[in-house]
Structures are given as structure tokens and as C-alpha cells.
């Protein structure tokens, strides 16, 4: 997008009328206009909620109104930075369309007709519906599905409620994110490591778009420190590609061929770290044999990256001081995804990139004294729906795609209700049509959120959680190379009739009983304040209140597995280049490359990706962010666009193979592989309470097909093939 500057002298503020007044910011400026000559300025340290990084900030509050969230320079993970999203988050309490009180639906689902309800009324309504549903299923409490995002401050209270309620059906975020990546790295290293990017000098990024998918401290360290070689393989010319030393538009889904050829070159030229391999790895001989034919010439045919470049990269990588083939997220998300990740892990392993400065490092964490909730036993408890569909199903995460398929077929039992906590299912899970089919089968859908997401819009009862800037959260252990404990405390008083998650779930629990007639509310003890006081020491709590975090003070924790303080968590206790475990399960013990199918004539592979100003579907309607991108557009390679007779700005209809479709503006660009198309997430909203994106642009979930990968259960978002037609 081209940014021009200052045309106001010719045309005045032409765009100003389009959005009208943004009450959130007007609220802020009005409040400050009325202030005295010496306003009361206070700073409250707390932590961000706009993405998973939870950066600690200093909240600047002027006369009781949040003016800005400034970065806290001492917080080691974010080192004095606050991204656009974090800054814009200051608007959220003042969002005129935020959830302000409990709502019970009065019209049809998605019609947007609600009545305001008291908390008691909402709880009672939910309990009546859920208890009736459970009774209709003969007491099978598994009939209620629990859905949530992952790693939020109060999620354990929600999981506690689910545990005592007695349903094993939990769906968290990982299988629409990185569970395949975690599984791939776990199978080699026994854990999913982070990378000590600040000290690395040669980085290969496969799909990981760290300039746009901001992740602390990796983004800071990757681009804020000069002198690193960055190789970017991605079918899309992202901003990361623009900042890389060299970009290769790899054929989509062929990352494994690239990695295997790298291994081939390194081993053929004897550039591996043999000492590391001998001491820490198993299966080296098998790997060496396995990659014999994975020549750069072969990989060139598959990936489209010249053989000479693959050779050069392999050599440079092996000879670099601290090379990292980055274990980032979006890469293949195609059929052999776990094995693709395994092959990337192995490129690291053979050059000895493990648990050392500048390399991959297993995460550490600081423990706090948190009391887990004991499960309640129920006579008619059933195993989770998709228990047989995924080889390494993580019970705590579930697997979205097969779970939903099972629920649609009531196989082996019916799902009658959904409790959804902070996961915008409608917008984030592939194949929105199927999600709506699922919703149609539900007796009750409860959504707990802070704003009217598309999912809340289609729920029956909406419970408003208190905004993160108004909320007290308990201490949170944030793992990483340099672990910390972080904190959230209110900057301002609660503005509306909202409650923190803890209060919602503990109060709701009191409306349910176990089979012995005991209230489930009994399982919740104490308030959040009580938990704060017992989970950490008084001194630590004091530091949390003043700084928003504490660390051990020892800095990064590197080398524990090399010093023998920590074992390697694989079945053999070694870094596994060959996996007996996989072989025993009938899976390929080594990564076997399978050529991805071509989209076919006139068709495209649909890619998903991130944008620096957005966190998935959450932020597109934040005014200060939306101003930078009022709607999304679909990237189509210029040549292909010409073939279709499509010009930038034309409206096109994108249709997948199962009939899912949406309409969106085209953007003809050189910046994408001719076989692929892409558009950003978060737009084309169905919720009228997200007015800036309601019906504006398109939604990814409308055109993503549902595919999953049976080793980790991860959704395969890049298996979607679409057609494009000008409308």
C-alpha cells in the first residue's frame, strides 16, 4: 500500500466523514479537556491482553482516564516496546460497543436482539438450559463442550469449572495454531523451545512472519539488531521478507524438501557437529541414509529454490556461529506438517544448535503456589468425542476439526451445549458454515467475552468479562528463556456491570450440583485477592504491584540440558533424529516428503497470515488500528489477476471446494506466489457491534476448508483451494 502524505490542502479531510466520530477517543479528549491546569497523573504497571505476549506496561492515567499504555523498559521480554496493538488497547474500556452487562438473546441467533439481564438471571437461565441438556443425555455431562483461548490469566478458573462440572470436551487454541509445530519439535527435542535470537547470527524463517506477527523478544531482536543474516522462505513477500537478507518464494507446502536438502548438503560435506550428534542424538545413521537422495537438485524441483542457493544456505548455516532454523509458526499447515517441523528441528540438531547461546533453548518458568481444582467423578462420564482421531491428542487442548465433525454427527454421543470463553470460534475456526451447523444443533451457547465478537453475536447468553484495564488478575508465570511472573491490576475502576472470569465461573458453579447434591460452588475458595496473597510471597506481590513483573534476577537460563541439570524429554532421553516412538505407532519414523497437490487450473491455494496491527480477529475494529487498514483485500499475483481479468479494486468472490465463500476487494500484486492468494484476518465481521468491520472485507473462516492433521490434530489451513471470480 502506498502512503501519501498531506493532500489536505487540495481536498481537506475527505476521509474524515467515512467513520464519523469515534466515541472512545472523544471520551478521552473530552475528559482531558475538562481537566484542571495541574492534572492528576498516575502510573499503574500492568500487562497487555491484546496478544499472547502479555507485555508489561506502565499505564498513564490522567484524571482517572487512561491516556496511554507506555512500555515498561525493565520488563525483560519486551525491553521497552509496546506495539501498535498494545498502544491501541487503551481504547478498549471506552469502546461504546463493548459488552457492558449480561445479555440474553430474544430474537433468532445472529439477529442481534437482546435483553439486558441481571447476573443472577443469566446464571439461572444458563443452568436451566445446561441441566436440561445433561438430563436429556442421561446424565452425560460430556454433552457440554468447553471452548477457550489459551494461557489467559483467568483461564484456570474456567478450566476449574469445567473440571468440577465433569466434561472432558475442551477445545483450546493450539489446534488452530501451533500444535503441529509443538508436536514436531517435541518429537525431536522433547520440548518446544524458544530461540535466543539476540545472540544468533544466521536465521532461517519458514513462514514465520516475525515483522508482522510480533512476538517478544524475537521481533525486537531479529530486526532491531543489525548484522544478522535472515533467510526467508515464504510464498508471500511479507514485511519480514522485505527485511530479510534474501527472500525465496517457495512453492507452498514444500518446506520439508528444503530442510531435507539442507541436511543432505550438511552431511555430504561433513559440516555437521559430530560431537553433539554423538553425545546427544540418536538415529543419525538412519537420517543420513534417509536424506541420501534429497539432493539440492531434487529440492529445486520441489521448492522452486535454486539448488545452488540451497547449497549455499546449507553451508552458511552450518558454518555460522549461532545459526537458527526458526521454530516459528505458520509454515506448511499442509498434510505432512508435523514431519515438516521435525525436519526443521533436525536441521538445527545436526549443527548442534541446542540449548546454547544464540540457539534453540528449552523454556524455563518460575513456579507459583497455585492450588489446582480436584476433578469430580460422575457415573456417566464419557471420553472426549475425538479421542480416536488424533495420535497425540492433548486432552487439555482437544482437536477442533475432528471434534466438530464428531459433534455434527453425534458420534459417539450428542453435544447439546457450548460454553465459550474468549475464543472467537466463528471467525477463527476454519469452515464457518460448519461452525454454524454446529451452533444450529445446540440447546445453549454461552459466550464470555469483553466485546461483541462474531461468536458472542451468535450466542444465546453473553456474559461480559471485565476489561483487562479494569481488572485484577492473579500472578501469571510467563515461561521463556528468561522466565518471569507477571501481573495485571486495574488502571481504572470498573465502568459497567461486568465481572472478572473468576467471579463468573465461581458464581455460575453455585448453580450446579454434583451427583451427591453438593454445590459445585464449594470447589471455589477465596477471591482473586486471596489467591494473589497465597500464590507469591509478600515481597514478590509488592514487586508485582509496583513493576508488574518479577524475575529470578539471574537472566536468561541457557544450557541446563548440556550441564545435565535437565534431561531431554524424549522416550530415549536423546535428541531423536529417528523416532522409534513414531515407528511403533505406525507413523513414519523419519520425515517422508510427499509432494503437495497443485491447486489445479484456474485455482489457488489460500494462505493465511498475520498483520502487524492485528491479533487475529480481535483488533480489526480498534479505531486507531482500523485507520491504517479499513478493510482487507485479497492478494493475487499480477499475472494471474490479468488472466482472470481482475484489477486492483475489483470485487471478487472467493469460493472453496465445499461451497464456502466470501466477497472481497482484489489487490493485484507481485508479492505473492502465482499459485496462492491471501487476505488478512479480522474483517468481514457478522457482528453489528463491530461497526468498523461489519460487512467490510472478507472473513478467512468463511473460505477456509476444514482439514486436519491426525498426528497432532492441528487444522491444516493451507489445504484450502479456492476459485476467484470477478463479481
Amino acid at each position: 500500500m502506498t502512503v501519501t502524505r498531506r493532500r489536505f490542502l487540495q481536498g481537506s479531510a475527505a476521509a474524515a466523514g467515512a467513520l464519523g466520530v469515534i466515541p472512545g477517543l472523544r471520551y478521552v479528549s473530552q475528559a482531558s479537556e475538562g481537566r484542571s491546569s495541574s492534572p492528576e497523573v498516575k502510573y499503574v504497571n500492568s500487562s497487555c491482553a491484546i496478544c499472547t505476549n502479555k507485555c508489561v506496561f506502565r499505564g498513564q492515567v490522567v484524571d482517572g482516564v487512561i491516556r496511554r499504555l507506555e512500555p515498561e523498559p525493565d520488563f525483560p521480554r519486551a525491553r521497552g516496546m509496546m506495539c501498535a496493538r498494545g498502544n491501541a488497547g487503551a481504547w478498549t474500556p471506552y469502546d461504546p460497543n463493548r459488552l457492558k452487562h449480561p445479555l440474553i438473546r430474544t430474537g433468532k441467533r445472529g439477529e442481534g436482539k437482546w435483553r439486558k439481564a441481571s447476573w443472577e438471571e443469566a446464571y439461572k437461565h444458563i443452568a436451566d438450559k445446561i441441566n436440561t441438556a445433561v438430563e436429556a443425555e442421561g446424565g452425560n455431562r460430556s454433552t457440554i463442550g468447553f471452548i477457550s483461548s489459551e494461557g489467559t490469566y483467568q483461564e484456570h478458573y474456567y478450566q476449574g469449572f469445567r473440571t468440577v462440572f465433569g466434561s472432558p470436551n475442551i477445545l483450546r487454541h493450539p489446534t488452530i495454531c501451533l500444535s503441529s509445530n509443538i508436536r514436531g519439535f517435541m518429537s525431536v527435542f522433547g520440548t518446544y523451545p524458544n530461540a535466543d535470537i539476540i545472540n544468533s547470527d544466521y536465521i532461517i524463517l519458514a513462514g514465520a512472519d516475525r515483522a508482522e506477527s510480533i512476538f517478544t523478544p524475537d521481533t525486537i531482536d531479529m530486526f532491531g539488531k543489525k548484522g544478522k543474516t535472515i533467510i526467508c522462505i515464504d510464498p508471500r513477500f511479507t514485511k519480514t521478507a522485505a527485511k530479510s537478507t534474501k527472500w525465496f518464494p517457495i512453492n507452498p507446502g514444500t518446506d520439508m524438501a528444503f530442510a531435507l536438502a539442507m541436511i543432505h548438503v550438511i552431511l555430504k560435506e561433513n559440516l555437521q557437529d559430530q560431537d553433539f550428534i554423538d553425545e546427544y542424538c540418536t538415529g543419525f545413521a538412519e537420517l543420513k541414509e534417509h536424506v541420501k537422495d534429497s539432493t539440492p537438485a531434487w529440492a529445486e524441483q520441489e521448492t522452486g529454490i535454486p539448488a545452488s542457493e540451497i547449497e549455499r544456505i546449507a553451508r552458511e548455516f552450518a558454518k555460522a556461529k549461532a545459526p537458527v532454523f526458526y521454530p516459528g509458526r505458520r509454515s506448511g499447515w499442509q498434510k505432512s506438517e508435523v514431519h515438516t517441523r521435525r525436519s526443521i528441528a533436525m536441521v538445527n540438531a545436526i549443527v548442534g544448535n541446542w540449548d546454547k547461546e544464540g540457539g534453540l533453548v528449552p523454556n524455563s518458568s518460575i513456579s507459583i503456589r497455585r492450588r489446582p481444582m480436584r476433578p469430580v467423578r460422575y457415573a456417566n462420564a464419557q471420553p472426549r468425542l475425538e479421542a480416536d482421531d488424533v495420535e497425540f491428542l492433548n486432552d487439555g487442548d482437544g482437536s477442533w476439526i475432528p471434534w466438530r465433525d464428531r459433534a455434527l454427527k453425534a458420534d459417539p454421543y450428542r453435544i447439546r451445549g457450548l460454553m465459550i470463553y474468549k475464543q472467537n470460534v466463528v471467525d477463527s475456526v476454519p469452515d464457518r458454515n460448519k461452525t454454524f451447523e454446529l451452533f444450529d444443533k445446540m440447546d445453549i451457547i454461552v459466550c464470555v467475552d469483553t466485546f461483541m465478537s462474531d461468536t458472542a453475536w451468535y450466542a444465546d447468553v453473553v456474559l461480559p468479562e471485565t476489561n483487562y484495564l479494569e481488572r485484577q488478575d492473579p500472578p501469571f508465570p510467563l515461561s521463556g528463556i528468561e522466565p518471569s511472573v507477571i501481573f495485571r491490576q486495574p488502571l481504572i475502576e470498573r465502568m459497567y456491570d461486568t465481572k472478572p472470569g473468576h467471579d463468573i465461573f465461581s458464581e455460575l458453579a453455585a448453580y450446579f450440583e454434583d451427583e451427591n447434591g453438593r454445590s459445585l460452588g464449594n470447589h471455589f475458595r477465596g477471591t482473586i485477592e486471596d489467591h494473589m496473597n497465597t500464590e507469591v510471597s509478600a515481597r514478590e506481590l509488592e514487586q508485582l504491584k509496583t513493576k508488574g513483573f518479577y524475575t529470578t534476577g539471574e537472566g536468561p537460563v541457557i544450557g541446563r540440558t548440556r550441564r545435565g541439570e535437565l534431561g531431554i524429554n524424549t522416550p530415549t532421553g536423546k535428541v531423536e533424529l529417528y523416532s522409534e516412538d513414531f515407528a511403533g505407532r505406525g507413523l513414519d519414523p523419519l520425515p517422508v516428503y510427499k509432494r503437495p497437490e497443485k491447486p489445479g487450473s484456474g485455482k489457488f491455494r489460500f494462505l493465511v497470515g498475520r498483520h502487524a496491527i492485528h491479533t487475529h480477529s480481535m483488533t480489526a475494529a480498534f479505531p486507531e488500528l482500523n485507520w491504517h487498514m479499513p478493510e482487507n483485500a485479497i492478494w493475487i499475483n499480477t499475472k494471474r489477476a490479468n488472466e482472470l481479468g481482475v484489477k486492483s479494486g475489483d470485487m471478487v468472490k472467493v469460493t472453496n471446494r465445499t461451497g464456502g465463500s466470501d466477497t472481497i476487494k482484489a489487490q493485484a500484486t507481485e508479492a505473492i506466489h502465482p499459485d496462492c492468494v491471501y487476505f488478512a484476518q479480522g474483517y468481514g465481521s457478522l457482528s453489528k457491534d463491530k461497526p468498523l468491520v461489519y460487512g467490510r472485507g472478507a472473513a478467512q473462516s468463511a473460505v477456509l476448508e476444514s482439514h486436519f492433521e491426525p498426528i497432532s490434530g492441528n487444522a491444516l489451513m493451507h489445504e484450502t483451494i479456492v476459485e476467484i471470480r470477478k463479481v
Partner: protein
Amino acid sequence: MASHNQPRWAMVIEADKCIDCKACDVACKRENQIDAKGNPEVCRNWINNEGVKGTYPNLQQTFTPEQCHQCDNPPCVPVCPVQATWQGDDGVVLVDKKKCIGCTLCAINCPYKARYMTEARKGETRKADKCNYCEYRPKTKLPACVDTCPTKVRTFGNLNDPNSDVSKLLKDRPYKVLQEDKGTKPHIFYI
């Protein structure tokens, strides 16, 4: 002109670190309470991005942050008919919005197009506005665009202090200013 006992505030921009993430823009709008209402012209800083250049697969794209250059010879100052725009002893060019009559002469004469006009309030004209390095902030704080930047593209400090980070950067590295030929003596340095 500033005396040597005065600070002379300046900024050094390492443009090739910029990832075009817009944190500087949003932080600035927040800190200075600018309600742009979707108008891309209303901003105190911006990132020049001329789009993707080249032909697939040989592509490149650059991002260059820019803002008011806090010139030593600011062309916006002498043209103001009511002396609403002026330069402080510390080199920062400021606008007195009470005096401003909204004539836009300062904006027209700024070669960097660094000024925007606010919306007219009831009974008032539009007002010229621009970056003032968040001048009302306590001196211990950095301008919002500087503190927030993920990759620390911007370095702010006192050019008259040889030990400041800006002085050190300019001493060690080659730098340039934009539109030097205009003779404005800008104090945003690019390295």
C-alpha cells in the same frame, strides 16, 4: 538560535530497522490524543512506504519513518502571520494553538509536509498541528514514538551533549538529512 548551555533536541532514525508496524503512529496519537477519525493525513509521524518494487520474484520494499524535522531554519516560522508557530531555544518548533488562525501557510511552506490541520471546533478555525516531541511530557521521558518502537528505530536526545546517544551515533556513523538542498537545516538525521 540555541546557546550551547541549552539542550538542542534531535532525533536519529535508523530506517532500515523499521518494520512498518505502526507502533510509533498509534503511540503518538494516544499520547497526544489525536482523534484522526480515519483520516490518514492527520498524524504527527508516518512511515513512507512506496509499496513493493520490482517483478516477482525479485522484490524489495523499504520503510522510512518521518515526522517534523525540527529545522534550525524552519520555513514554517517566518510565514506565520500571527507568530503562532515559533521555535524554542531548544530547537523544537511549536504551535501556539490559541494564536493560530488556520491559514495553512505553515503547512504549505513545510517541504516535509509535516503539518496537519485539526478539525474546526465550534466557533473556531482549524488549527495547524505537528510533532512537538511530546513536549509536555516530563523531561525524564522519551517521546512516545521513541519509547514504543519495537526495533528502536528512533534515538532521541540532546545534540549539545557529546555523551548523549544521538551525539554518539552521529559521531560514529555516516548520516544524511532529507531535502538538504532546501536549506532548512533539519534535525532528524538518518543513518
